[in-house]
């Protein structure tokens, strides 16, 4: 598949006075591995959270698969558009909440892994299957055949993803009892279990040793083979340069450059940005 999977238009996020994202326009090509880099405080994670729906954009639009994430609530619809724009600007604007975006096909991992401590590795992934399974309290309460079938399917799929990240043998272990490296893989598997078209990886490499990093990049490639587009935020330059087919550079909330690894490495603004970081 090809074409753009994710697009942002004038995406802006301000916390009180501090503007973390300032009118960012990007477009991510489907089926590619895109990396977002930038010095600390460039707004990478904010950008992530905004796309994933954890933050509400101050203004701007996010388009996923050609579908906008904007929603106009009924009470806003009541007011004529021009008037609304005049009075409230973007304030009445609502955006699809995070969990709906996951159902649409955006999955993410977290910098601080955030696995579910009260569950085993397998259960964590089964939980990931949530948006791809359909049965509720009622059929669960009465153990209807439907519930049984679904459970079967869920656990099989879960096992599949667990094997994919090579943790099949730890299925029964408590998620938090695993070492950090494997926890990170597990988190990725959990995200994969939601069967996303776009996978957001927040610093997958952080805290891994070189060996684990190699495994990681292999895994990421394998995920790409499945036809899942990937955006990752990463500090580790070698890793990024190794796997990213397209790189977007953010600095203090603005997009300052984008291109292939080689292009980025030559770009003065990027170098300036990073040097600037080193000097102070």
């Amino acid at each position: 598949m090809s074409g753009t999977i994710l697009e942002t238009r004038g995406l802006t996020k301000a916390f009180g006075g501090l503007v973390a994202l300032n009118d960012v326009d990007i477009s991510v090509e489907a089926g590619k591995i895109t990396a977002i880099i930038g010095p600390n405080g460039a707004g990478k994670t904010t950008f992530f959270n905004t796309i994933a729906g954890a933050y509400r954009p101050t203004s701007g639009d996010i388009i996923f698969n050609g579908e906008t994430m904007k929603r106009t609530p009924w009470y806003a619809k009541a007011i004529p558009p021009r008037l609304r724009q005049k009075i409230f600007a973007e304030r009445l604007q609502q955006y699809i909440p995070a969990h709906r975006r996951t159902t649409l096909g955006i999955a993410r991992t977290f910098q601080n892994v955030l696995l579910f401590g009260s569950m085993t590795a397998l259960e964590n992934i089964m939980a990931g299957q949530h948006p791809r399974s359909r049965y509720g309290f009622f059929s669960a309460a009465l153990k209807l055949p439907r519930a049984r079938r679904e459970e079967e399917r869920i656990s099989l799929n879960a096992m599949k993803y667990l094997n994919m990240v090579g943790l099949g043998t730890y299925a029964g272990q408590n998620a938090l009892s695993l070492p950090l490296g494997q926890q990170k893989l597990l988190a990725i598997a959990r995200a994969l279990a939601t069967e996303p078209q776009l996978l957001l990886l927040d610093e997958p490499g952080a805290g891994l040793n070189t060996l684990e990093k190699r495994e990681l990049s292999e895994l990421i490639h394998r995920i790409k083979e499945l036809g899942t587009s990937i955006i990752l935020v990463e500090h580790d330059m070698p890793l990024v340069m190794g796997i990213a087919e397209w790189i977007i550079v953010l600095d203090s909330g603005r997009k300052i450059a984008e291109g292939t690894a080689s292009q980025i490495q030559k770009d003065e603004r990027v170098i300036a940005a990073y040097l600037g970081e080193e000097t102070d």
Partner: protein
Amino acid sequence: MKKGEAWASPFLSESDFLSCSMSADQFLQYLLAGLSQGSVYALVGLGFTIIYAVTRIINFAQGEFVMLGGMLSFTLGVSAGLPLAVAAILSIVITAIIGAIMYLLAIRTAKRASVISLIIITIGASIFIRGIAGTKEMWGVDAVRPLPFTGSESIGILGAYIQPQVLWVIGAAVLVTVLLQLFLTRTVVGKALKACAVNPQAAVLVGINIKTMALIAFILAAALGGIGGVVMAPWTMMSYHSGFMIGLKGFVAASIGGFKSPIATVIGGILIGVVENMVVGINYGPFTSQYMDVWGLVVLLAILLIRSGRLASEEA
């Protein structure tokens, strides 16, 4: 309501007189009543605030500290006949010691206990204290009333009247708040407490012993409760089970103040007090003395929800 026969629930019940009109001095009277009750709530609420800020525990035994203060001041002041000042100070000190004991025996020994089980521990402690106080070996079940500090000749203010004891209560509330504020901002220990409140991890990093701080917090809270009990007992009277209701009100006051600063708590307490008494003043429809407590709580809920709304708006 008549039992037995068919039953209708009139929200505008018998107590529905169209006497909404409130004369100026009546208004003042309600205001004063609210103010004085409010400062009682505030005094109790301060204890909650300190402990919560430092330990993130809601100490359900706070009301019992108040009760202890009041009962002790009666035993020492009236039964044992000690001079008033001595009795007052002694009962505050004893209450503070009990607070310390409670922390050391019940709270600190509970390692790796979740917040909720810590709450249960404080509930257990309060049941324990109340139970002991209620036995006929201790104070029994009758309410007691220590002697007022300065007579019981009521004082007139622009057509409204209050007992002199109420002035003591309000005074104590003000004084305690000011001292507490100074303590927290000026002294080293106070600053350390504040640090724990703001960010425990950081506090630990800069070498503050969080356990000692928690102990201090409990002692302070117990002492505050004691003070509250001592000053309010001559006015409101005390019995072994006064603690629970007073505690609840103080709790509300503290949480309206957001468990943050002493001043916020005092404002919260007075707000509740005034609302409740104004409701009595309106005395129409659902705004009657039957529902004074409800309206206090409604205010609380409103404030909580507004706060949460502000939080939620930050997120999606």
